[in-house]
């Protein structure tokens, strides 16, 4: 070993070439331990659950909006037969009143035969309906995007066609939307609970990591790192862990969704599939569903970073 002429560190001499890559960019705080992996797993599971809850809530929200717009675009007038009145005349009168109401796109009358066919599932085929007072339906399709006021039509019908009654499905719609809203609120509450659980897990993991890295933190202090710097280092590690965990969880949630979508598609041929689809719409979540899952993953990662930073700051302040 030949001694350099001067140890003067102020003037780095350039005679010898520097090693190509000195930079390893190793993290200053080692969190990549078994504890770190366990935390990533916990975060993955919690993200998975949160994403499924949020995705489910989104599914219900989307389906119920779809039903509501379909259902509320249709109202029906029911005309009951009455011995003293001609039902055909009543229907004609009701139809002409309906045509004059605002926001109406199309008025369609069910003929006697069609009305009877509607009853078949309940009464069986081959019955002679001629003796039965089968009510007749007039289906009114509304223009898209309109929310017309039917009190005028209702009033007119009551005066001119007392055997007719208007059903705008309002009661059914309120019940439907109440139920859907309840499901959505429950889903959101579950998401929040899962996020709180994730925060707690991160808090404990951070405190554990800090206690395990006491020596490292001390040395960082001695070489002139301030609390902010140390907190940032921990935060960066935990953000990566959180991002990895939440990406795994979100990925699993997306895969489950896709598999469920494929299963429902194969069920669709069966009668059970029809009912499922009637209830949930087709299972394939739209872009909003995927966006929700990705958003949840990002939220979890950011919560992980923020909570770990907060915990580190508090830990450093307690330590004096």
């Amino acid at each position, binding site marked *: 070993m030949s*001694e350099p002429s001067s140890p003067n560190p102020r003037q780095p001499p350039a005679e010898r070439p520097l090693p190509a890559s*000195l930079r390893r960019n*190793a993290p*200053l705080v080692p969190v990549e331990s078994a504890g770190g992996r366990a935390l990533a797993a916990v975060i993955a599971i919690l993200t998975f659950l949160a994403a499924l809850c949020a995705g489910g809530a989104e599914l219900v929200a989307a389906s119920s909006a779809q039903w509501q717009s379909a259902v509320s675009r249709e109202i029906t007038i029911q005309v009951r037969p009455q011995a003293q009145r001609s039902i055909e005349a009543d229907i004609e009168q009701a139809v002409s009143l309906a045509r004059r109401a605002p926001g109406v796109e199309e008025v369609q009358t069910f003929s006697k035969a069609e009305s009877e066919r509607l009853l078949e599932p309940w009464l069986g085929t081959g019955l002679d309906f001629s003796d039965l007072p089968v009510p007749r339906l007039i289906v009114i399709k509304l223009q898209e995007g309109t929310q017309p006021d039917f009190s005028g039509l209702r009033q007119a019908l009551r005066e001119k066609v007392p055997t007719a009654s208007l059903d705008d499905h309002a009661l059914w719609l309120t019940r439907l939307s109440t139920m859907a809203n309840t499901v959505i609120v429950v889903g959101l509450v579950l998401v929040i609970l899962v996020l709180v659980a994730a925060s707690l897990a991160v808090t404990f993991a951070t405190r554990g990591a800090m206690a395990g890295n006491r020596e490292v933190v001390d040395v960082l202090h001695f*070489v002139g790192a301030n609390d902010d710097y140390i907190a940032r280092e921990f935060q960066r590690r935990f953000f990566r862990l959180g991002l990895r965990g939440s990406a795994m969880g979100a990925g699993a949630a997306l895969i489950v969704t896709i598999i469920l979508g494929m299963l429902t598609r194969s069920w669709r041929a069966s009668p059970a599939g029809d009912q499922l689809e009637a209830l949930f719409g087709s299972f394939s979540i739209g872009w909003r569903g995927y966006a929700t899952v990705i958003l949840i993953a990002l939220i979890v990662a950011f919560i992980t970073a923020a909570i770990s930073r907060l915990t580190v700051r508090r830990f450093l302040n307690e330590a004096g």
Partner: protein
Amino acid sequence: MQRVKALYENEFDQGLAPAVHFENVGVRYGMGPEVLRDLTFSIEPRSFQFLTGPSGAGKTTLLRLILLSVRPTRGLVSLFGQDVSKISKDGLTALRRRMGVVFQDFRLLDHLTTYENVALPLRVQGKEEASYRAEVVELLRWVGLGDRMHVLPPVLSGGEKQRAAIARALIVRPDLLLADEPTGNVDPSLARRLLRLFIELNRLGTSVVIATHDFSLMDQLNVRRLVLGDGHLHIDA
């Protein structure tokens, strides 16, 4: 009092305040006996001194008092003209950036390479890696660790760890260097070489305090000796 303070501040501005000033300082660990008693001394800027005394006399404790990792139970400690009893966290960080330390037990970070350990004080100040790479490499070569740069501390020998610890303390060219037994694990010729490094640093303006009980090392230099014994300090000029 007001005048003394003004004088201190004035001196501090001119870099003339003592790097370290102790007045009647005493310290005890927990409820134990006082390890150090009635210490009154100063370490002047650009000065060079040894701190010596038998094992257990309190050399490490005295250095920890200066590092503010142990607080005095009584008395007054000031660093670079600043009373440390009411210092803020930011102030503490600023003070530590003016000091370099070589710990008796090295305290290298085991998950970082030798190079990264030595560069650590610069890295935590937020400096760009490219801006200090050449400097770090040169210092590593000077202490004879040129081919051990990419190795993790656990595989270094005791003497190599010691040299890495010294390099880490020197890299920021501190105003005050505290070295606890910096030559305890190296052969006499390397010890002389490291001593020359400290002298060179001192020439560039750093106050140096070397704690040691190695008389052959101290005999190489005719400088002030702070001798600890029975909790008291006396100074051999």
